Every structure is written in C-alpha cells, then in structure tokens.
C-alpha cells in the first residue's frame, strides 16, 4: 500500500477532525464535492457539521476563521489555489497575523495554500507565495516536501496557537508517494538534511527539494557529494541547520520556485553571509524562477522554474571555483 502527498493531506485533516472537536474546515467546494483537488474527499460525510462550503469570498473566509479562532475554535481554511489567497490577503496579514500581538488572544487557524507550478496551469494557478506571507510578523509558514511532512506538519499546524500558512505543492500531490504515514516527526521549525554531502550545500524547500535531490544524484557520478537541506518551514527559518551544513561544505546554493526579488533564498543567503561569512569558500548563489508571471506553455514553464538540470549546472559552476 502506498499513500500520496495529497492523500496524506486528506488523512491529516481527518485526524485533526477526529481528535479535536474544535476543528472545522471551511472553503470553496470542500463539502460534499470534496475540494477542487479532493483534499477533503469524504470528510463532510465522515464528520457531519464540521466541513462547510464557502462562497467565493476569500476575504470573508479568512475573516470568519479569525472570528472562530477568537472563540477558541481551530479552523482550517482551504484556498482553492494559493494564487487566490491574495483576495484574502488583508485578513491574513492584518487581522490574523496581528491578533495575538495586539490583544494577547492567540489566533489558531490554518490556511491551506495549494501552490506552485504544474505544467499548463499558467499565471494564476501556479504561484508560490511563501515569501509574502513569511514577510509578515505573526505567521508561521510551512512548506513540506515529503508525504510524511505533509501529514505530520499539517496535524501540527492545526495544533499550533498561531496562524499557519500551509503551502502544499500541487506538483507533489499525485507524484509523491510513501509506503506509510509516520508516527513521529521532527519538531516544527527544524530543517532536515535530505541528503548528506561535503562539497556543496543546496538549501531548498517543497518541490525544489526533489529537484535538488535529482541534481545531487546527477552530480554524484562526477565525484561531487552534495548536501541537500530541506527547510520544511520557511518561517521560522532554521538558520542553525543551514549554517552547520555550510560549515561542512563551504559552498551554498539556495533554490526556490518563487520569484527572485527578495524572498526565502535571499533571506537564507543574507543570514549565512552576515553570520557565517568565514564559512564560505565561494560566493553563495541562488536560483529562482524567472522574474515574469508563470507561463502556460510546457516549453516555457519548464524553463521558467529551476529544474534538476539547472540546479546541477549552477552547482558545477560553483564547484569549479
């Protein structure tokens, strides 16, 4: 038996609903239909009165979740696509993110963002928005790369007393499989060494972890041992694990699917450069999507985002230095 990344997300929500009567799910088409991606399949039937269809009102969806959190509930909001969360942006960053700081009342809610590029999805169904949410104080931003993390981190997200932006990658939904669901997990906020190496550190998160691992596999026959760090959460950012890895390798390449201006990769490099400059043997580099909206055509899309081949090429340049 195997379970996909998407099924793990569905199972995590079933566990949350089963174990905590304060949990409910609210989002477009999440009820009887089971969600646009079927991430809530059968949950409305299994948990009557706990899964609610919402009108196409992202702002009001998040606002309702904030009110419910004030009353002590633990809502899970499904955005149909991460891209549409910008229509609820104000409630996320100004209401949910500031509530605890302003009033001392925790705002425990989870916003699930199906994000990232898939071939043919185009500019408005492909975006990676972890950077803009991580920018705001008060939010936790999770970017699970594995089936196991998708499961355990979503359960953790619901249990956390802070608003969590849960970035689940659509490209991984069906492709990524695991044999079983985990019974234990790394703490939230800790990065994971996805592959050990001594020549160069690639820091990645979400789907880019798999591109980085493929690049590392491509470079292995050439004699290079690449270490891959999976950030797991981009906020909080586990600077210690990154720094320890760079201390071993002396080379840092940061890979993200988001746009290049600012962002998670820039943040990682800024931290390593300011705190661990002496650890670096060569200038740190980063690889992101191109600075354009995300193209629809597969030929363009494949060149728009970092791929294993592009990562390997960037790594080779750094290794030759």
């Amino acid at each position, binding site marked *: 038996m195997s379970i996909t990344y998407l099924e793990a997300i569905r199972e995590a929500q079933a566990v949350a609903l089963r174990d905590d009567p304060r949990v*409910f799910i609210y989002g477009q088409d999440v009820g009887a239909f089971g969600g646009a991606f079927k991430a809530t399949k059968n949950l409305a039937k299994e948990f009557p*009165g706990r899964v609610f269809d*919402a*009108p196409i*009102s992202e*702002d*009001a*969806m*998040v*606002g*309702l*979740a*904030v*009110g*419910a*959190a*004030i*009353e*002590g*509930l633990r*809502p899970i909001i499904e955005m149909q696509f991460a891209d549409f969360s910008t229509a609820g942006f*104000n*409630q996320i960053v*100004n*209401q949910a*993110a*500031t*509530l*605890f*700081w*302003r*009033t001392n*009342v*925790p*705002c425990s809610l989870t916003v699930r963002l199906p994000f990232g590029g898939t071939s043919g999805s185009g500019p408005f169904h492909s975006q990676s928005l972890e950077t803009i949410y991580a920018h705001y*104080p*008060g*939010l*936790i931003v999770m970017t699970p790369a594995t089936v196991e993390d998708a499961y355990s981190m979503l359960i953790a997200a619901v249990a*956390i*007393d*802070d608003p969590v932006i849960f970035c689940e990658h659509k490209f991984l939904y069906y492709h990524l499989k695991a044999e079983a669901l985990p019974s234990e997990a790394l*703490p*939230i*906020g800790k990065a994971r060494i996805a592959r050990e190496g001594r020549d160069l550190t690639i820091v990645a998160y979400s789907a880019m972890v798999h591109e980085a691992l493929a690049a590392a596999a491509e470079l292995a026959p050439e004699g290079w041992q690449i270490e891959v760090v999976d950030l797991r959460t981009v*906020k*909080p*950012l586990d*600077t*210690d694990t990154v720094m320890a890895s760079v201390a071993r390798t002396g080379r840092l390449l940061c890979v993200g699917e988001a746009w290049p201006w600012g962002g998670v990769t820039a943040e990682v490099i800024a*931290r390593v450069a*300011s*705190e661990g400059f002496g650890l670096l043997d060569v200038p740190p580099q980063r690889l992101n999507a191109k600075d354009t909206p995300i193209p629809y055509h597969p030929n363009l899309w494949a060149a728009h985002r970092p791929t294993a081949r592009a990562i390997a090429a960037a790594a080779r340049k750094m290794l030759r230095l």
Partner: protein
Amino acid sequence: MYQTVLDAEAGGGSAALRDLHLSAYRFMLQARLLDEKLASLYRAGKIHGGVFLSRGQEALSVSIGVSLRKTDVFSPLIRDSAGRLAFGESILDALQTCLGSALGPMRGRDGNVHRGRPRDGYLAMISHLGAMISVVNGTLFARRFKGITDAVGATCIGDGGTATGAFHEALNQAAVEKLPLVLVVANNQYAYSTPNDREFACADLADRAVGYGVTPHSVDGTDLSACLEVMGRAVAQARAGGGPQLVVASLLRLCGHGEHDDAGYIDPRIKNSPLGRDCLKVAEDILLSRHWADASELASWRNEAVRAIETTVARVQREPAPDPFAEQWTAVAGTDLRETHEELGV
C-alpha cells in the same frame, strides 16, 4: 420624520422605557465628555497619534451597546465611544489605550480606537474598513458550532466603508449562514471628506439589504428614542433567528474625521438641516419634555461623569509607559516557533 417615535405616545411610556433612555443618555454623556477630554489632551500634546471623536453619533452608537447583552459580540468602529461604554468598556480601558499606558489592554502596542477585549466578545478593530464584519460572522458561526444559539453580534461601519469588497463579502456570507448579525451603517454623509454622491449611486443604502437577503432598517440617527426602538427591534429579530439585520442611520459627524481635521468640507446646508442636530441635545430634550429627568439631574450626571474621567486621567497619567527593553519583540504565541535569528542590534 424627525419627530421622535415616542412623541406619539403622548407623555406615556413604561418605567422600563424611561430607564433605558436614562441609561443610554448617561453613556452618551460620558462618551461626549470623554471625547472632549481626549480632544483637550490631544491639543495639549499629551496623546501620541490621532484622536477620533464620536460627536454626533452617540445616539446611534449607544443604542447598540444598550441593546446587546454582555454575552453578545460587539465590534465597534471609529465613532463608537458611547456604544463601547454601554457594552461594558471601562473609562479606564479607553484612557489607558489613548494615553498609551503599559497597563491597558493594548499595552501601548495599539492606540486610540483600536482597543478591545476579544475574549469578552469585545473585538479590537483593525483600520481596514469592512474587515471586522466577517470576523464578527466568525464569532457567531463559532458560537453556533459550540451550541450557543442565543448570541447576537453587532458591528458598525460608515457610509464610506459600504463601498469595500469586504463589506459585500461579509454581508453576503452572513446571509448565506443566516447569522444573527446586526450591521449598523452610520451614514454621516461623508467618507472622510468625500460626499455620498461620490461614494454610492443607490437611492438609500438600506436598499442594498434586499439584494443580500437581509432585513433592512432605517433610522434617524440624531434621535435617541428612534435609535433605541429600531436597534432594539433589529437585535431582537437577529436573536430570534431572523438572520442578519442591516440598520442604516442618517446623521452628521459633528467634528472632523480626526482632531487634525477641521471638517471645512461639510456643506453648511447639511449642518443646518435636521441631520445636523446634536443628538445629545435631542436626547436631553426628550428626557426633559417627558419629565424623565430635570435640569439638576442632568447637571449632576455631568459632574459625576467629569469627576470619573478626571480621576481616571490622573491615574492613567501616573501609569508606566511601555518599556522597549522589557517588550516581548515577537508576534507569535508559540514560544518554540519564534525566529531565533536576530539582526545586529544598534
């Protein structure tokens, strides 16, 4: 139209109605006097940031506060000093917030009208207009989820705020969920400086209710008796399962948007129309004409309120300001989820 609805009762009225008026009037008076104190503290340079007064909107606002139960939800907006006090806010909370005391509910992290105690059903507004409505929906949704079915939630907005997407989404959401929401629109004729005819094109904002499947109510916001009657009815209908209620009040803000604003844009014809009446004066006339209070009682209530405000101001001015060195510089509740990385302190 601007006669009080109670005049028709020709001097009658139950003791309960009298007590409701007296209670409402005293909160209005407290709110007005508190506003006046805040304005003078502002002019004396004792208040950081803005000061936003409720002058002219006390009758409408207080009618919300006195119509709600303490177990209900209230999310006031910028001009709800009277409603806040009537719902149970202390003068101390108000002054601690406006003067930036570390001991107040907002601990110097936010000021002026941005105060509340969400755990008590008294929400703290953000500045983005329309954003609190769906939050109130959420509290009501949660209470129903928990099996509490007799709670009402009220929130306020101005004519300007009705143009936001958040207003539309939230009112539609409340209607879809049949929530016991009372949404009060104070049409004070201007969104900051912009007159009604540059804000919306429908004949009457109350007409919008039908489009949402919501019950409309219209009221003369300068008339305390009318406000008490209409708001009492709207709250009762919401509590009885009648779904969301939209109350639209006509009135005029008798001050600037904030104390920095001289309101020179207000058309003198509106000022001189019945909309420009001072609702506090109208309320006093009601009490006096119905012999529910005499001039000496009004004067003693005023003195009492002034004393309470002055005493509290003196107390709060002795309270500590927030200490940046003792401040918890984190916005997340989970202590294990805080960023450990720190930029170099300067």
